[in-house]
């Protein structure tokens, strides 16, 4: 479109510059400074300022056993949480994909967990599982089940965080997959039924191929997000027992704000983001073409 308005320069200065400059100063430049800092040694507690160390921080990464361990835990957490969320999300989406009384209210309630503060979600499950006040250990005791100290053994601590994550994010899966299910063409389903396919066969051979794209998008979305999980760990386990639930984000937070080694923390941030970008890249490439159209549809619908 041609120039609609006069005094372009003035209006650009008034409308565009403040917002853009603000984001550049508080979001873009800091990100670049993090890259810069990743080549520095800077301990906030001892050093007057950052000093250049080249790629020494990056070399330290591969020898950092704690970091590699936390990467392993993060991977385990993300894969398990995403998988359970996919299964439950698909089930609930199928459940909700029909005419129901009070459908709006039901949908609204189901979606509540994903808008709660992640910290509050963590609190909810901390309370439910804590052996002082929680109903879950109490119920297990009532049926003479095993005495489980949820937050003090490694695998139950990780499990607790996974459960909280599943509770919080299954609704997102439900939402995305329900949108996909409602886009499945009725004619193909009916045609398959007329041909005598069983319910399971219809789902497997007619419905599933039509929602694979959205499943791929939803799984990618959740996996990336789970990889960055921090809030629930800090509330529920603090990374413990030991470092058994110390996800990478928690490791970064500790390196930066408990040990104050800012330079090295910046290095982990950058390496971690590059790793995430690479995973995402390969994931996208592995997807069949129709997944892209699904993702475009989503962002089109959303924006």
């Amino acid at each position, binding site marked *: 479109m041609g120039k609609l308005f006069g005094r*372009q320069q003035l209006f650009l200065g008034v409308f565009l510059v403040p917002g853009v400059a603000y984001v550049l100063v508080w979001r873009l430049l*800091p*990100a670049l400074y993090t890259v810069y800092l990743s080549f520095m040694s800077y301990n906030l507690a001892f050093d007057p300022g950052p000093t250049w160390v080249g790629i020494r921080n990056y070399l330290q990464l591969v020898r950092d056993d704690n970091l590699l361990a936390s990467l392993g835990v993060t991977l385990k957490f993300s894969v398990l949480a995403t998988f359970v969320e996919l299964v439950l999300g698909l089930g609930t989406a199928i459940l909700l994909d029909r005419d129901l009384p009070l459908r709006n209210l039901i949908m609204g309630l189901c979606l*509540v967990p994903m808008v709660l503060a*992640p910290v509050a979600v963590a609190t909810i499950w901390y309370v439910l599982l804590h052996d002082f006040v929680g109903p879950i250990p109490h119920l297990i005791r009532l049926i003479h089940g095993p005495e489980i100290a949820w937050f003090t053994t490694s695998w139950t601590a990780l499990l607790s965080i996974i459960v909280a994550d599943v509770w919080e994010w299954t609704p997102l899966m439900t939402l995305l997959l329900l949108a996909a299910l409602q886009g499945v063409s009725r004619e193909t389903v009916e045609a398959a039924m007329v041909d*005598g396919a069983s319910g399971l066969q219809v789902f497997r051979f007619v419905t599933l191929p039509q929602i694979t794209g959205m499943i791929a998008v939803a799984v990618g979305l959740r996996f990336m997000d789970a990889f960055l999980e921090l809030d629930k760990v800090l509330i529920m386990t603090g990374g413990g027992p030991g470092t058994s639930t110390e996800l990478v984000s928690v490791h970064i937070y500790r390196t930066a704000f408990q040990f104050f080694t800012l330079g090295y923390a910046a290095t982990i941030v950058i390496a971690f983001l590059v790793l995430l970008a690479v995973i995402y890249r390969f994931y996208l490439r592995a997807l069949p073409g129709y997944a892209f159209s699904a993702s475009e549809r989503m962002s089109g619908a959303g*924006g």
Partner: protein
Amino acid sequence: MRVSRHSSDGLGQKSLAPPAQTPKGWVSSAFRILRRRSASIGIAVGLTMFLSWTVLPIVYLGVLSVKPERLLLDRPSLNFRPSLERYGQLLQWDKLGAPVKNSLISASLGTAGAVLLGSMAAIAFTLLDFRAKGPLFFTIVLTRMYPPMTTVIPVYLMLRRLELLDTLTALVIVFAALQIPLVLWVMHTALNAIPRDIIESAVLDGASLPVVVRKVLLPLSGPGLVTAAILSFIFCWNDFLLPLVITSSAARTGTVAIMAYTETYRNVLWGPLSTVSIAMVAPTIVFMLALRTYLVKGLTAGMLKG
């Protein structure tokens, strides 16, 4: 599948005896009704389970928050007189209310800033012409795609230099910076949906940009503004990492206070923990139930990018 059998039975009726009169047809239709009923029972059971799984945990937190102090550690019994004592303290800004008040002020002002600056930028991106428009838009939106973790160290150092650590000002600054791209995205879409003709005819009538903004854009982009504002408020209100790093006591938000209450496993402050948590989830639950259609699209878009 059942439906298809039924229709083929229907076709058969023309040539053969009506199946409803044969014992076999009667059995199969009874079986069909039974199956349909058990299917709807299954759906009801599934829905009830899903809803309980979603709602009961929040309800339990609410129960804990009205339990009298001395009964808090007394087995998870439900046999007590609810006490609203702690909710009273929540209304006193110097007690439990302090962190919630900090969240409220910083999230509101941060949202106001983001909506103002983000919408103005969206107007520029929609209506004005300038060089490198596409790349600039992409750059701004990109800053929302990388996680807050990326910038938390430099932002901490900047705020330390400015001597703003542990102040509400610092929270407002970083909240606005995080949400401007979201507002820009939502408002850009909303403004693009306004028919060009309306704007152009206003311009032909001699309207300048400020007049067009006031008379045409503002009245027509209401839903976009509401979506942008509420989403950005929810993201600020729920934020944890940045407040954790840049505030410590005076300006600490509700989310940071929650973490402080749980810090020691043996001496968790269950009362404040549950009460402040309820205060922190109540607004977002209300938003979700009241404005679901607005939020869902924006949330999924925000997440696909974020």
